[in-house]
């Protein structure tokens, strides 16, 4: 794919402590300004795949990889994360891993400062993200005094101020409340539309993500076992159930109707649900 932002070919990966490959022959291509949602049970390899794409494995996290990972033209298997500075932003599942400073303002300014941007630009970006994610009331707070959900929001904000071209999110909404989730999705959608941001997000709760996602990939035991548009993936009812993936509510209703003998299409977004269910 010519306009691919992230290309993964026949990728195998494992950690120093793993006995066997954690990723087994993963192939993936995500186009520029597209959003891919990665799904699958805990332990299926979603986080490992994100670490490999970010050049953290084996460069920061000890382990081994073989295969090809190219992100925005950078051969990650050769350069590691150093070749991706300012290009890829990753938000970890556990915000404790990346919230490090003593004030929320410092946290937000750190990435653009480290990129060597002029002070006015640093300020502009901090102001932008504070507005976008409604963080004004946190600015003077010590991040360590915030709740899990608030820390997660700050972690996401601190990566967005870097203005990466590729954003990797590991269960970004697991601790967020409804408002935080909505603000993050709206902001990510805006960056995708206006700045061509490419997004790969691992998520268990996919319903709100599919409103903005272009593709879904389901992983099981280290491999991608389903891939396609959200509609394609969730219309394969038996596979969705076999891999324990949580469907959007509208799709679940369609599954129940099919069990009752009604031949209905599987909607994944609300708009489609209105058509399918004739509302």
């Amino acid at each position, binding site marked *: 794919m010519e306009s691919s932002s992230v290309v993964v070919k026949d990728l195998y990966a494992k950690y120093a402590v793993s006995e066997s490959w954690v990723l087994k022959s993963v192939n993936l291509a995500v186009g520029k300004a597209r959003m891919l949602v990665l799904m699958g049970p805990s332990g299926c390899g979603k986080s490992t795949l994100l670490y490999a794409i970010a050049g953290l494995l084996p460069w920061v996290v000890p382990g081994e990889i073989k295969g090809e990972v190219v992100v925005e033209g950078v051969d990650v298997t050769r350069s590691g994360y150093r070749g991706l500075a300012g290009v890829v932003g990753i938000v970890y599942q556990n915000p404790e891993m990346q919230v490090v400073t003593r004030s929320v303002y410092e946290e937000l300014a750190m990435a653009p400062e480290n990129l060597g941007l002029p002070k006015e630009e640093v300020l502009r970006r901090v102001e932008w993200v504070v507005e976008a994610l409604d963080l004004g009331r946190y600015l003077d707070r010590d991040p360590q005094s915030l709740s899990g959900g608030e820390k997660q929001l700050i972690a996401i904000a601190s990566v967005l101020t870097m203005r990466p071209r590729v954003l990797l999110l590991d269960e970004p909404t*697991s601790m967020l409340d409804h408002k935080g989730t909505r603000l993050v999705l709206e902001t990510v959608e805006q960056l995708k539309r206006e700045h061509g941001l490419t997004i790969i997000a691992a998520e268990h709760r996919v319903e709100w993500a599919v409103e903005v996602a272009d593709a879904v990939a389901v992983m099981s035991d280290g491999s991608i076992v389903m891939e396609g548009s959200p509609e394609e993936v969730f219309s394969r009812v038996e596979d969705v159930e076999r891999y324990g993936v949580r469907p959007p509510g509208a799709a679940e209703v369609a*599954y129940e109707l099919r069990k009752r003998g009604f031949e209905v299409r599987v909607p994944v977004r609300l708009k489609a649900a209105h058509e399918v269910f004739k509302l």
Partner: protein
Amino acid sequence: MIKLEKVRFRYPNGPEAIKGVTLSVEDGEFVGVIGHSGAGKTTLAKLIAGLLKPSEGRVLVDGMDTRVTPASVLARKVGYVFQNPETMLFSATLLDEVAFALRNFGYPPAEIEGRVRAALEKVDLQKPLNASPHVLSFGEKRRLAIACILAMDPSVVVLDEPTTGLDYARCLSLFNTLSKLNKEGKTVIVITHDTDLLARFAKRVVVVEEGVIARDGPAGEVLSDIDFLRAHGFTPTQLQVLASKLKAPAPTASAVSETLARAWRLS
């Protein structure tokens, strides 16, 4: 029975987190608590469990005022599972972890191992009793933390965001466990943002907003009221929007599909 009477709570040198809550929960209820980050949900749950004492008003657990009842007595009545299981786990083995409170309560050693096994079975954690809690996955730690509470056999179990970090299969299995405990007679109070799971399992929903209760009613009714949810900053789920539109009795896939099927068969 749990009774909160005009309860207020202020953290030392901090903001007033609970600003006048009156609430009662009968024995055997399954109550979901929802609210935004910082609304006061965790504070409310800790007040119910007697881990925090009200600054004003009182909390009664089976008629006992939490301000004057010893923790050892309260712990047998109400168990509280922390949001982060790491907060609760400190022993070298699963046996020691789950047995910790039982030993403090003075249970005979012969009885302890049986209770520990039963509690671990309830949360479906099949690991050797001498395994270390620290090598467990996050989901397993979560279940271990719940087992620690169940071992004490409290009549009320309070869980603070127990689904965080769990995949869908584990979420369902956890809620099925809670549902089973509830059917056996335990009162279950669970804080979560996952309103679809609440609609399916809880009978009553309490909405906490800025330290007060903004709504309290049957789960199906509260969670289908999308105008209320939107007005209070919640994003209605697809099931909630569909249930509201179809006037289905609850925002669950089975209730919504049942309502649709009935309408289609009639037309």
